[in-house]
């Protein structure tokens, strides 16, 4: 452990706390400085692998805030890098709350990545969920508040699953350290922990929150959200659940499910959300395969995915920022008004579609190759099928419907459409450059992967021919059947139907039968309870007046009457007689006392 350990999350947390003090000309440099310092800290830590920030807690638990190893390094690096790009993208945003929420969110992600035990993990996990909810709520558009509540409730459920798993795990093993779990020796705790982590990775059937939340977040917020939650969850799965075969099945299901929904989606950011589910499916499957090549592929794909998906969300955000519209049915033909945004979206599209020399080509293929090497042929072929679908959706349908094809913009939308401010351009340029750089210069990404002994060569003639055939013929099918992919002003029902209508059903229950029962109970109470209470009270008052008071008053009256009679006999005004009677009475008393 080094004595100079400074947790990167602390830089972001203190940076966020001090942000309101940075004003005027200092604000933008400050906004850039904080995430840059965070990245420098992450790089510094990567030169000092080991355990840092080890704290004894309540003399019972050892908390590890800084586990720096080959797996955490690669994820922390890309998260910190994306924090810089995302902050540059949002430099024009005057609302400090959005920057503060975003930085706390990133600090949560870095905290999870560096955590070495379940307690620290849970602390930062909840910080992520809490702060990212504000990235939705801070969008003042219609529906954002409700979407934020749905997001928060779903993630609270995931957090509870996780906490239950941690508690059960601690109860059975007495160990809180966050390490690889044994696939051959699973307990209820294992599945609860996996369920909690899977919810954040948007694994089907815990996935519906993702397109719902990301399409409602602020423009900058969505750029942050698309990078951190799912990929942090992928990291945790890679850390604890490598080789759990159920994840292969779930990953492939995610990949297919996401792409099918993306094909019929009308909202740009929801489409990209579905695409995230599909791409994270590759990573989850990679974790499930669990071989060194698959884990390398998962890390590489998460790294590449954060950049190209960030780029796509930034380009989509630029369109929404300019036009105020997010649906294909309200957009189209924008290449004349937003040519630079088109270029950036195309770079993101070809990267996610795994074009040679772009990032997806060198990362996605690693997971598919790992599936083939592990003789998981159905998984490998299905994931390759989804590659074609990815190009169909993100490389062709998305740019075609936004920038080419039929112009469905209203006059006001068309008039507003223009390329975004310089800072958004700069952020997209950085991400686009990195997409190209990663795909063209392999040592940059491959040098960071956890298993350095694995050699993978994506630029073979066979892999190039395979990729070009897939891309070329998918484009051909798109050209022939693009009318089938035309947008429709609809939404797609998904599994969130159950909790959205379930919530509505609960509301109906509360406002109808439960309210009726409450009203009826009130009436019964009023009629039976209140009237009987009044009757009892009246009886008590009568009894008190006539019974108790009568007894007490009667006794008093009796004593007073006897006293008057005695006074008539004894107090006649003759002093000698009174003294005689008194002395006689005292004498009788004394004699009686002495005698008896």
């Amino acid at each position, binding site marked *: 452990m080094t004595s100079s350990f400074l947790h990167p999350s602390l830089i972001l947390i203190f940076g966020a706390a001090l942000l309101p003090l940075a004003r005027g000309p200092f604000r933008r440099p400050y906004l850039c400085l904080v995430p840059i310092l965070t990245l420098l800290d992450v790089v510094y830590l990567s030169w000092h692998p080991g355990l840092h920030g080890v704290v004894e807690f309540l003399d019972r638990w050892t908390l590890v805030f800084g586990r720096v190893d080959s797996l955490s390094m690669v994820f922390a690096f890309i998260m910190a890098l994306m924090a810089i790009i995302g902050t540059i993208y949002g430099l024009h945003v005057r609302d400090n709350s959005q920057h503060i929420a975003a930085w706390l969110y990133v600090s949560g992600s870095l905290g999870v990545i560096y955590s070495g035990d379940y307690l620290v993990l849970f602390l930062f996990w909840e910080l992520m969920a809490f702060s990212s909810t504000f990235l939705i709520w801070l969008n003042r558009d219609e529906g954002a508040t409700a979407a934020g509540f749905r997001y928060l409730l779903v993630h609270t459920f995931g957090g509870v699953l996780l906490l239950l798993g941690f508690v059960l795990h601690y109860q059975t093993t007495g160990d809180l350290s966050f390490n690889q779990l044994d696939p051959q020796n699973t307990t209820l705790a294992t599945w609860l922990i996996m369920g909690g982590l899977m919810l954040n990775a948007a694994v089907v059937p815990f996935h519906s929150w993702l397109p719902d939340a990301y399409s409602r977040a602020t423009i900058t917020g969505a750029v942050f959200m698309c990078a951190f939650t799912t990929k942090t969850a992928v990291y945790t799965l890679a850390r604890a659940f490598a080789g759990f075969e159920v994840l292969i099945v779930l990953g492939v299901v995610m990949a297919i499910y996401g792409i*099918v929904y993306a094909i019929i989606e009308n909202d740009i950011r929801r489409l990209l959300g579905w695409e995230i589910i599909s791409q994270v499916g590759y990573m989850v499957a990679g974790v499930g395969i669990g071989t060194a090549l698959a884990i390398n592929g998962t890390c590489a794909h998460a790294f590449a995915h954060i950049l190209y998906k960030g780029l796509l969300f930034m380009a989509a955000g630029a369109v929404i920022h300019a036009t105020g519209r997010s649906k294909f049915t309200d957009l189209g033909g924008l290449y004349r008004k937003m040519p630079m945004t088109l270029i950036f979206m195309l770079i993101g599209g070809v990267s996610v579609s795994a074009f040679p020399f772009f990032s997806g080509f060198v990362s996605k293929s690693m997971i598919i190759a790992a599936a083939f090497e592990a003789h998981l042929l159905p998984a490998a072929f299905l994931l390759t099928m989804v590659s074609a679908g990815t190009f169909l959706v993100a490389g062709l349908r998305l740019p075609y419907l936004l920038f080419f094809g039929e112009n469905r913009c209203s006059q006001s939308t068309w008039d507003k459409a223009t390329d975004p401010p310089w800072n958004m351009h700069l952020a997209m340029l950085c991400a686009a450059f990195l997409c190209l750089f990663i795909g063209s210069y392999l040592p940059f990404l491959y040098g960071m992967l956890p298993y350095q002994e694995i050699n993978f060569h994506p630029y073979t003639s066979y892999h190039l021919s395979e990729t070009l055939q897939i891309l070329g013929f998918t484009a051909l099918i798109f050209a022939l059947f693009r009318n089938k992919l035309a947008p429709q002003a609809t939404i797609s029902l998904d599994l969130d139907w159950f909790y959205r209508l379930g919530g509505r059903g609960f509301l109906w229950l509360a406002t109808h039968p439960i309210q009726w029962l409450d009203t009826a109970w009130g009436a019964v109470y009023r009629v039976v309870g209140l009237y009987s209470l009044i009757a009892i009270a009246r009886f008590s008052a009568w009894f008190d007046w006539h019974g108790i008071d009568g007894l007490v008053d009667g006794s008093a009256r009796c004593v007073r009457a006897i006293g008057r009679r005695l006074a008539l006999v004894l107090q006649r005004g003759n002093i000698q007689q009174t003294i005689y009677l008194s002395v006689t009475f005292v004498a009788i008393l004394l004699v009686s006392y002495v005698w008896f």
Partner: protein
Amino acid sequence: MIVELIEFLLKRQRGLRTAGSIALAIIVVWSVTGVDTHHAHTWLEKYIPGFWAIFASISALVLIFVASWLGRSGIMTREEYYDI
């Protein structure tokens, strides 16, 4: 400049289609004749010429039609469905 280039290309759609077809043909011919398939993952790729071209075409078609069928079967609904 980008806009002019795009409009230049859009005006020559027939040429674009021809160029695309030639590119596809080159990819297939090169894949069949010029690429060593000894390191292919399965025998399907080794012995079916242009396997990935066929696979991609079928995959794209399956995805388009499955998505379209699912959408029509009730998944796609009116936008105000969840509005109270």
